[in-house]
């Protein structure tokens, strides 16, 4: 069962989530502050981090950035407010998904399972050809789940990788944000399209030569995103 690191400052919420996730069969490590959480990760890596944005001391955004900088661990934010600015800032800091408090355990659990599914398995696209694919300077190995540019491996977070695989599976075809939410985030039709936008921005900053003039992941205003044509 996946190991969850829960970083939440309020004791009742921490206890509630720990109880509920443990009840579902997860191994839960619950800490109070961002600093503690980062220290815990250094010693004993978890499979997924559930992170409250409003923390005393180091705030959730900073914790998020540091986890992202050091690895590709999936992060789910807990936002006490559904304030758009918080959500967007959290997604820009590298979170893969978010859950608004108060949340039922089964909602959080579903998000955890969805984000963990992205680390493996084939994307639901048209039949992928075996072996690495070349797209311009990019090489995408769908089986080994490795993306490299000019021969250098690019470190992508699971959601970013999943998004790239989904888009590159059908080059030249436009995918709407809602389609991407369903296929990459496992969200129903009514997901938050800002998840897609934020993830596209992060992906571009890693694979494009110039993120302001994207070549690989292109925006079609009003329709969605398209891989290529190169």
């Amino acid at each position: 069962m996946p190991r969850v690191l829960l970083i939440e400052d309020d004791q009742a919420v921490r206890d509630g989530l720990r109880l509920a996730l443990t009840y579902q069969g997860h191994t839960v490590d619950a800490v109070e502050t961002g600093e503690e959480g980062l220290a815990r990760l250094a010693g004993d890596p978890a499979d997924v981090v559930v992170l409250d944005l409003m923390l005393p001391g180091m705030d959730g955004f900073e914790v998020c950035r540091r986890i992202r900088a050091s690895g590709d661990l999936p992060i789910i934010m807990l936002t006490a407010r559904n304030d758009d600015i918080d959500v967007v800032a959290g997604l820009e800091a590298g979170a893969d998904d978010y859950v608004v408090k108060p949340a039922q355990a089964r909602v959080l659990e579903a998000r955890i399972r969805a984000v963990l599914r992205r680390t493996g398995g084939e994307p639901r696209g048209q039949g992928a050809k075996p072996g690495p694919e070349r797209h311009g300077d990019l090489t995408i190995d769908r089986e080994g789940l490795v993306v490299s540019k000019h021969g250098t491996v690019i470190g992508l977070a699971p959601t970013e990788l999943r998004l790239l695989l989904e888009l590159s599976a059908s080059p030249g075809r436009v995918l709407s944000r809602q389609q991407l939410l369903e296929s990459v985030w496992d969200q129903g039709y009514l997901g938050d399209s800002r998840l897609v936008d934020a993830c596209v921005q992060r992906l571009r900053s890693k694979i494009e030569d110039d993120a302001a003039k994207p070549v690989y992941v292109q925006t079609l205003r009003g329709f969605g995103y398209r891989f290529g044509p190169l």
Partner: protein
Amino acid sequence: MTGWQFRGLRTRLLVAFALLSVFTAVAVAGIGYVRARDGILQRTQDNAAVEMTNQLKQLYPLPRRPVDANALQVAADRLNGRKNSALVTSGGHSAGDMPASVITPELRGAVQSGRVAWQRVDVGGVTQLALGSPLLISTGDRRNPTVPSGIEVYELRNLDAEIEAVNGLARNAWLAGGAALVVALILAVLAASSVLRPVGELQRAARRLGAGDLDARITVRGSDELASVAETFNSTADSLQRHVGELRRMEADARRFVADVSHELRTPLAAMTAVTDMLDAEAKRLPDAAGEAVRLVSQETHNLARLVNDLIEVTRFDSGTASLAVDDVDVAEAVRATLRARGFAVETDLPDGIRARVDPRRLDVIVANLVGNALRHGGEPVTVRLRGDQAGITLSVEDSGSGLDEEVLPHVFARFYKADTARSRSEGSGLGLAIAWENARLHHGELTAGNRPGGGAVFTLWLPREVRQ
């Protein structure tokens, strides 16, 4: 005077000044003219009478009576001059150039009674002076010093010069009156402006104040009544600004309080909500009453959480922090997704291919609230219809219940409004329709409620194809 009313202060002032100046000019010039004219004419007449009596002396000694025509002619020739013509009559005879027709009976009567008399007469359209005098004979008797000789002398004098002088006077009077009128009008315009400029400023400032610009003030000039009106306006605006500021502060405080309370409630609710799934699972294993109690706690925790979420949503609308995350969506697909996610069974008329740029999550909230409301308070079957045109999309939710009462209609989107006061707390926070309405407004669209002709309520949502942000 149709259509020309004394509406404006400017018009009234101009008219008043004009009337006053015309009246004054007419009075002054008129009286002056009349007196000058009378004076001129009086002097002329007096002079003419004096001249005539002097001339008459030349006729003495009088010819013996009965006077013959010849003697009369001689007398007339003596009296005829450049500026006048004469007529000498005695008995039935007369001689001279003056036409007898101009001598009026009154003049003749006055002369025959023994007086020197004159009268202005009209001769061929020109005013001339006719004078008449009897020739008298001295008797030397004290009691009756003179007796009429029977000879009457008439003269007709030309008044051209005097008439010219009088006309000159009249012209001057008209000129003076006209100049006075022009000056009066200029003064009136100036006076009107000096009054109307501050009045106009006051009006503009009052309009700004009414439109909600509480900083509107006017500059106070001088110390007249208008200045004191300006001061009054400014102090009124000051106190209005103070009061409104206070009200706004109070309202902001109240809203902040609601927002703070909602946020404070969130944390304990988050802890409780986290464990409700566990409670629901464990309740099955508990004995009847305990299980029921646990289920109750779980259910009410969800209701409370929904209420708090809705409250927070409302506070975000109020504080203006609610924003749109628009995306291009196929509206029919989005509505179907909402119905699917909520498990709503309704009849649909949702043509594909109607696309709009809306916030899908907010559209979901609107549709879920409208359909949920129709199923709960209306009556099945519920029909959801979608139509689109160039400008926007129209989504209607119709139920088959008894419709909405007339007194309910205006309040149906009010917060916590319960159409039926006796109705117990239903599922839903009492904020659903209010939030739906706010969401429509955020899209620059609108949400309206009404009744179908055949009974049943209908809620109609209109959203623009593209939100202008």
